[in-house]
């Protein structure tokens, strides 16, 4: 039982790492564009960005469900496309992860009325300088907690994904409990999820300490 559990735990961690990396990779350019739009002095561009974010906020799980359904045959018949299971499982998670990450970055970044953004516009500063010297440093204040929240969300979604057959601890719980009722395994799985969540939360919080320089 321990071997099966360790293997499932390994797979869950791989899914989580891959999903987080893909989310960051996808969210990078998307949130970059959204942030530029949010700080733009053009009303129309800002309105489009706010509409996109608003729609994403409402429907962020819909793309996840669609991709899960699309990937379902691949998971059920691994011979169709020869990629590791954990990568297949990470794709739907990356979709929702990147959306949530982009939305949170958008919400945290200063808008066009922010004094520093206005100052950059007044000084005719380039967009790159605006992002490099104003938006990025401002964002670093909240980026830690954003990534923390996104990773914890992915942990939760891994369970749901696993329950419909995408692997990891989620699948182990479901299949083991359907075939043979196993409360010990269920308990181990819950403890594992809580431990992963606490570890993620603790790691991000420990990076959050701001030390006074003077």
């Amino acid at each position: 039982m321990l071997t099966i559990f360790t293997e499932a735990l390994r797979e869950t961690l791989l899914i989580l790492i891959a999903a987080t990396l893909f989310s960051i990779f996808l969210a990078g350019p998307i949130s970059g564009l959204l942030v530029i739009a949010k700080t733009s002095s053009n009303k129309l561009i800002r309105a489009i960005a706010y509409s996109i974010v608003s729609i994403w906020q409402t429907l962020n799980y819909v793309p996840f469900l669609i991709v899960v359904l699309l990937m379902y045959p691949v998971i059920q018949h691994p011979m169709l496309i020869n990629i590791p299971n954990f990568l297949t499982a990470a794709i739907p998670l990356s979709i929702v992860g990147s959306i949530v990450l982009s939305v949170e970055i958008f919400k945290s970044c200063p808008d066009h009325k922010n004094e520093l953004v206005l100052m950059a516009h007044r000084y005719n500063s380039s967009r790159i300088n605006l992002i490099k010297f104003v938006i990025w440093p401002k964002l670093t204040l909240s980026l830690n907690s954003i990534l923390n929240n996104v990773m914890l969300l992915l942990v939760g979604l891994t369970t749901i994904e696993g329950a419909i057959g995408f692997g990891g601890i989620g699948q182990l719980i479901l299949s083991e409990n359907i075939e043979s009722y196993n409360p010990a395994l269920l308990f181990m799985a819950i403890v594992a999820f809580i431990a992963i969540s606490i570890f993620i939360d603790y790691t991000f919080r420990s990076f959050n300490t701001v030390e006074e320089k003077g």
Partner: protein
Amino acid sequence: MTNSAIIELQNVSSKSHNLHKIDLELHSNQILAVVGKPNSGKYQLIECLTLSIQGLDEGKIICHQKDFLALSLDEQHMLMRQIGYITTNPTFIENKTVYENIELCFKLLNIKPHVAAEKIQQLMKITEIASKQDTLVSNLNLWQKIKLDITRKLASQPRLLIGIDLQNNLDATTSRKLDQLIQQLTNELNLSWVLITNDPITIKNICHKIIMMQDSTIIEELTPLELFTKPNSDVGKDYLKYITKQELPINIKDSLQRNVQTNNKMLLRIATKANDNFNNHLPETLANFELNINIISAYKDTINQTVIYVMLVTINLLSADETEFYNALLEHDIYSENIGYVDDIY
């Protein structure tokens, strides 16, 4: 427009910005105060002065003898750099130090690091914030934040700085320090200032000109001395009443009424530039009108290095004789202002 004018608003009207026929000229080394009640158009005027306005229905904004709105975007930005504004709630990057926050402005201006480093040290010395250069902004108090805001705004070598309600959230001592800094920067860096303030001490001590705003337009332009002696507009008179009320003893302030009632006496503020006017002409005028006064307070005030003498008196003056009495005093350079009505016991 004279050559020294930094910015001139010529008959500026904008429905979208709620401004109506604004005429204003601001010169080098001038400190201008904008006084007005809430929603009088002060902040819309500031928007205009910071050149943040998009379009006008009427009029022109002349900046360095050029029609600002007719310029190319690049030229507009060059002029916009020369105007900065300071608020009591400035935005900084809180997890960065004082030095890094000033440096940020130089980076946005694309100024080379070695040039910036030297300039930052100079500016920090002027505003006396050098000792805090390694402190995180989140650990600064409001006064230090205002000093930091002023320092970083100096990075673009502005000709005009606009202070928005700066004195409102500072205690009296710090407000005076701020006044000194404003005056110092005006003299040392040839800066001009527009201050939105209702602080009478700031107006008395450092301002050269005051504009009174009402209903989105400038209704009066006067010197501090004129404001504290003979304001013409209702806003000016109301302001004088307001600051006089602050000086009154609490029991009189509590009994002060706007309109005359039975057994009430008029509370009159009389001011003059020469004390002899009080000694020689006031008793004579009172005798002519067969009036008596009770002096509540008398003091000497300094407005922009000019001394004025002020008396707060209660007087049994009938409305019918009011204008005649005021004119009689005015003949002897004694300016009077009806502050309100108080109980007869005073």
